[in-house]
């Protein structure tokens, strides 16, 4: 695979997180785009590529948005890949820049959160969902993930406290990230354990809160970023695999297992050289699968590994091994803004690597691993994606 040399990821922005909103997806996507233009100093006509991910565009698609926002792109993508959207967007956009198909690509994930919109999304998520999972009562993907969590606990002896370690550390990170919707509340392990059951073994604080919001970034050549005076980060390696391990009874591993080694080799790094890990945390067990499959620990060892690892952004926990994880609080504490949640880890890593994170800045952040997971079509998540990003040297 050709490398991603010469590509700059710039201008990470997050916009408008809200529990409920009267505004539609176009409002969140367009407002994110407005921020991208303001931060980069570019005009709308400088954007010649557009990648969009959203669950709530209704009758519209990415192409309709070009008319809403008066854009004239010569490259366009709509990526309905949920939690893998951000990484898939940066991969596609980087290749388009390398090929000369576009010069500046805006990648945006955004969703609204109207009254009862989540119910509609959950009930109509896919044909398999309509016929074979929603009728069994689970609220959206809760039932499928409760099954996975239960089986993971049965197979590997994970306890609720182990999942809680992830949620509690992320809340600490969110307490230092103003945009996080739950960042104003602290969370102790006792509070985590006392939460009401949702789909046992899942309890309230294992489940993300659906919300509205937008996330975006720009992809361009390093020369262009330099001429615009923008900070950027580089893609050392990135990969994806979908519907992997399709004969497994239940999802205790994802597609990452099939390309993690290649990813590390291409980046010339090992897990010990990663300064922060951003996993897709729609439920803590899924973060554990990513930690295992990407090589931070072996299969089934994530419960012990998270016990012995300080996951806080500032390394203020008692454990000796430090690995800042989901440094903005992740979806569990920021909220899950539909497809924007698939951008959360990418955008947060870019902020960290360019030194723009603010109160939750990880010191000396050089390398970030970002992982994406998405689309519970029926009983498991189909998309897997991962990328290793680095701070630019020049």
């Amino acid at each position: 695979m050709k490398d991603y040399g010469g590509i700059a990821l710039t201008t990470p922005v997050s916009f408008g997180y809200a529990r409920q909103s009267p505004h539609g997806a176009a409002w969140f996507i367009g407002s994110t785009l407005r921020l991208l233009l303001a931060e980069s100093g570019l005009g709308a006509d400088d954007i010649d590529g557009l990648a969009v991910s959203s669950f709530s565009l209704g009758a519209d698609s990415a192409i309709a948005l070009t008319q809403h926002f008066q854009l004239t792109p010569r490259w366009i993508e709509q990526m309905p890949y949920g939690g893998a959207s951000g990484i898939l967007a940066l991969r596609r956009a980087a290749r388009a820049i390398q090929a000369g198909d576009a010069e500046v690509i805006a990648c945006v994930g955004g969703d609204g959160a109207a009254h009862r919109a989540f119910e509609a999304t959950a009930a109509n998520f896919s044909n398999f969902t309509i016929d074979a999972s929603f009728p069994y009562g689970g609220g959206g993907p809760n039932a499928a993930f409760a099954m996975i969590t239960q089986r993971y606990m049965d197979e590997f002896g994970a306890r609720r406290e182990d999942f809680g370690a992830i949620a509690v550390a992320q809340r600490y990170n969110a307490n230092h990230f103003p945009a996080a919707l739950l960042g104003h509340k602290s969370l102790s392990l006792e509070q985590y354990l006392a939460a009401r059951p949702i789909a046992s073994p899942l309890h309230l604080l294992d489940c993300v809160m659906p919300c509205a919001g937008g996330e975006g970034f720009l992809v361009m050549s390093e020369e262009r970023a330099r001429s615009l005076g923008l900070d950027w980060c580089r893609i050392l390696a990135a990969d994806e695999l979908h519907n992997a391990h399709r004969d497994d009874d239940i999802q205790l591993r994802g597609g990452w297992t099939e390309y993690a080694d290649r990813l590390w080799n291409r980046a010339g790094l090992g897990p010990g050289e990663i300064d922060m890990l951003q996993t897709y945390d729609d439920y803590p067990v899924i973060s554990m699968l990513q930690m295992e499959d990407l090589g931070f620990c072996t299969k089934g060892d994530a419960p012990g590994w998270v016990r012995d690892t300080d996951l806080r952004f500032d390394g203020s926990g008692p454990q000796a091994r430090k690995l800042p994880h989901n440094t903005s609080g992740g979806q569990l504490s920021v909220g899950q803004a539909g497809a924007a949640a698939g951008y959360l880890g990418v955008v947060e890593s870019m902020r960290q690597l360019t030194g723009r994170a603010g109160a939750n800045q990880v010191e000396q952040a050089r390398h970030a691993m970002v992982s994406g997971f998405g689309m519970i079509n029926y009983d498991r998540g189909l998309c897997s994606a991962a990328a290793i990003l680095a701070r630019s040297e020049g």
Partner: protein
Amino acid sequence: MSTTPTMRSRLKRNRPSLRKLARPPKQRTALGSAFNAANLPVALALQHCRDCGTVQYPPRELCRQCLGDALVWRSTRGSGHLVSSIELHHSLWEYFKRRLVEKPWPVASVRLDGGVIVFAHLAMATFGTAANPRLPVGTAVQVFTHTDCSLNAVMIAVAADTPVDSRDQRHAIAAGLGLLEPAIKPEGI
């Protein structure tokens, strides 16, 4: 018949919590409706590929193995093994919300011997394990369908040795789960 929504029908659609009667999800795809029809006369019918014999679920257009266009509905043995089981305490759907007030709602994921994974309402009473509600992974189960009160066929998982050959036996189990009656709010609209 008028197609103008009445105040009553609007309220029912937009505020399900105000309804007198709440039923399980009604919506299915066209293939889901075919599943309903195929399951009316038998305990369990699934799509089979006439060319390669592969069993299919959830319902689909083409064979998942050979992509052949030769899927037919056939009566199928419902024997299988438990992959995972959970108890719902929360739902987005009003029918389940009302049922959940009384007690949690158990759901199972089952690998049928035919090879497919199915989600099913779990009839815990048939396992005789009231003291220990957690069924071990790999527990032998059998799965059949019954028409719920939204007139859709839904999967029900029971202990492997439960007699379910007769329609009356299956009806009694489905009734015991509360699937055959709407969840009633007496003061509702």
